[in-house]
């Protein structure tokens, strides 16, 4: 059940049409754009009330029932800047696969899909010692999109598994 979405990684849309370009789903948190590889995105759902879990980091909002699978939902804003999102019906949860895990990321809104050539992807400056960002992409309208490293942000528990 937990791997049910892993095939999405190879779902249509993910394979790059002109060999090198990569696609990212971008979304907005506190008006800043972030992106994750499109292959990691399983689906996008509207915010729904989640069941909180005890003894968890504060950005873990709880769990929801995604057609029979229990999926944890993390608050990206809380993870990045510390303050919890006051979630409303307009907020969305991006359901993504990280390794063998499926998790949800609470974001303010989903923007669009970004086609990026490898040359346009820049490694973050070394001074930015954040495990969160994998790469920076500047778009045509000159905005800087941070590509997130989801497993560094949220995928902690699976590393210590058996």
């Amino acid at each position, binding site marked *: *059940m*937990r791997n049910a979405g892993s095939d999405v990684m190879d779902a249509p849309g993910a394979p790059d049409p002109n060999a090198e370009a990569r696609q990212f789903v971008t979304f907005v948190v506190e008006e800043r754009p972030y992106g994750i590889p499109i292959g990691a995105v399983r689906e996008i759902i509207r915010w729904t*009330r*989640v*069941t*909180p*879990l*005890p*003894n*968890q*980091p*504060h950005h873990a909002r*709880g*769990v*929801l*029932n995604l057609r*029979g*699978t*229990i*999926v*944890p939902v993390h608050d990206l804003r809380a993870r990045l800047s510390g303050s919890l999102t006051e979630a409303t019906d307009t907020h969305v949860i991006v359901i993504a696969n990280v390794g*063998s*895990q*499926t*998790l949800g990321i609470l974001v303010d809104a989903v923007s669009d899909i970004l086609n990026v050539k490898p040359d346009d992807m820049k490694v973050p400056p070394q001074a930015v010692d954040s495990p969160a960002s994998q790469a920076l992409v500047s778009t045509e309208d000159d905005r800087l999109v941070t590509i997130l490293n989801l497993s560094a942000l949220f995928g*902690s*528990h*699976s590393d*210590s598994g*058996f």
Partner: protein
Amino acid sequence: MDDEEDFQALFFIECEENLSDLQTRLDALLGGDSDPETVNAAFRAVHSVKGGAAAFGFMSLVGFAHEFETVMDRVRSATLDLSPEVCETLLRAGDVMAGLVEATRNGEEGVTERGEKVRQQLAALLGVVEPAPAATAPAPIAAAPEPVVEHEPEPEAMCVTVRLAPRSDFLLAGFDPARIIRAARPHGLVSIAVEGSVPPIEDYVPGDCPLAWRMEFELEGTLADLEDFFATYAYGADITVTSPNGEAKLEPKVGTIDAPAPLTDAKSAAPQPAPAAVAAQPDAALTLAPISSAAPAVAPQPVVAPPAPIARETPAAAPVSPPAPLDAPQVAAPRKAPANEAVVDGAAKAASAAPRSLRVDLDRVDRLVNLVGEVLIAQAAVAQGVGESDGAEMAAIKPLVETLTRQTRELQESVMAIRAQPVRSVFARLPRVVRDLSDALGKEVRLVMQGEDVEVDTTVIEELTEPLMHMIRNAMDHGVEAPDVRQAAGKPRQGTLTLSAEQRGGRVRIVLSDDGKGIDRDAVLSKARAKGLVAPDETLDAAAIEALIFHPGFSTAETISAVSGRGVGMDVVRRKIQMLSGRCVVAGNPGKGTTFTITLPLTLAVMDGMAIRVDDQQFILPLSSVVEAITVEPDSVSQLPDRTRVLRLRDDFLPVFSLRTALALPDEANGASTAIVIDTETSGHIVVLVDDLLGQRQVVLKSLEGNVGQIEGVGGATILGDGKVALVLDVAALFRLGPKSTGELERMH
């Protein structure tokens, strides 16, 4: 050949069953069981392995099994006393045979050094009791290309003709003429002729074998070998051996007076050479039943084979039964769940009581379990919907929903019962581990087991093996002292490990205790301090110190031994147990021993729970831990100096535990008045304050492991009728955590 591989796989599965059965029987014998049927059952187990191994030409295995069998035979015929030493040897032989099976499965041949030693011990047993010169050396083994043991001299190649005429049930019993012929080659098969002809298709009886084979041998082994080889097949065929000694009709070997094989064997296990026979299966399986039950009623026949060698295999004390038609010693050995004593209780009983069993892929059962889980959720939703609405139509539907609820529950219980297995299947492997470790560590340890019949879900069983082995290794390495040390401490030289299982409500409790030196608390504490696990000024009570051994990376073994103590010790055990929604605690008694207690749910799929409300959240408490629900009067709670609150319930003072506090939910102004008394199993009863009791329900457990990870205090989750997730709380773990750790950013790893 694919078939060949399939049959081999089957053979190994059956080997495992036979070996586990053997282990059980031998353990029983060691424990003083003198029931002849136990000896017989052990003998049959060895024999079945040998028979199967011979069919595939696994010669080292056959060689060893044969010797083993011969000794068992002596025991059976009471020419060999079953002294504890003999028992010990037999047990070790059982281990060696298990090792051989494993090696054979991995494509290795040849007997290990240890195996050779045990074999010599077996041979010595035979030497002591065997007055007859012919048998000072153990009987030659069947079908051996090169003699593994001494055999009588056979100067010239003797010409022998064997006529194999299958009877009607030959193919059904799982025999395959082609395989027999192939296996017979090493005996010096020089030519072969087929007699008879296949009738026209309209007269052909599927399953019958109208042909007979005449095989000529220039004997390469002894005549006894050859007869021994063919005697295996005499159940299903008329076999005549013509040698210079005269003509003899072979009788089935005495060793295989097994219960008629359960019908399923013929279906699933029988190698099927002829397509016709395959087609005949379903009908044949049914019509054969009366034949097999009738067989034991026929009077026993004496052995007729004139040459001595066969008779040597046949103790005079045990009359040979008529062949049981369905019994196929090679691959279709009786297949049974270890607990099914009925099958091995001798031919006569088994004929009437042979349980019909079915081998089903676990995946299929799991699919069924999952479906039932979904049905349960849907049913809960219906029940909830009906319960919440009123009106005339609903009143009519309510009783129907109740019926549905009852039947869903029955359905679920039946499905879960399919998956239940006695813990014996795990326990049975452990005596061997203990013996191996005793040798490796130079310690003398006895393992006493109780409650092997307690049934647990298959998943739990599978996952239980590793932690149990680990715990046993730990107890033997760190717990039980060396014999000399024990003696000096005034204990018996032999240490005792006691392993018991018992069912308690919806959980199974497994206790492993040793009578070793206990946990050296000072050593544990100083080690923990040295490793920075405990602050230098922190004081811990005895239980807290002992619990340190579960800390990852903690190991007090001064030297890293091959047995345990690689620093991946007890924390792995605890983690594994926690993954199964279980708990694992230790209690040491310095100088006297250590006791590990594991409690596990009987099943991991469905659970009876008590739904409660705290704040605006619904939670499920496992019903098995709920003792009673009470109303809390504010003045019945008093506060102790350390701010613990206690409640007087009848004559006891119980600690009061607020779920709101534990779950870091806002406090309710007017104070909770409803509470549930929970049995924590480890810390006695506690009073848990809740906001509301919503009632009892059956929930389908969903693991949090995969996507969320292990959360201390949460045993799992379930999906409510409205689609929301409700957490299943492990109150005992929450309570142990105490209020101080709640709200901390902590995850269990």
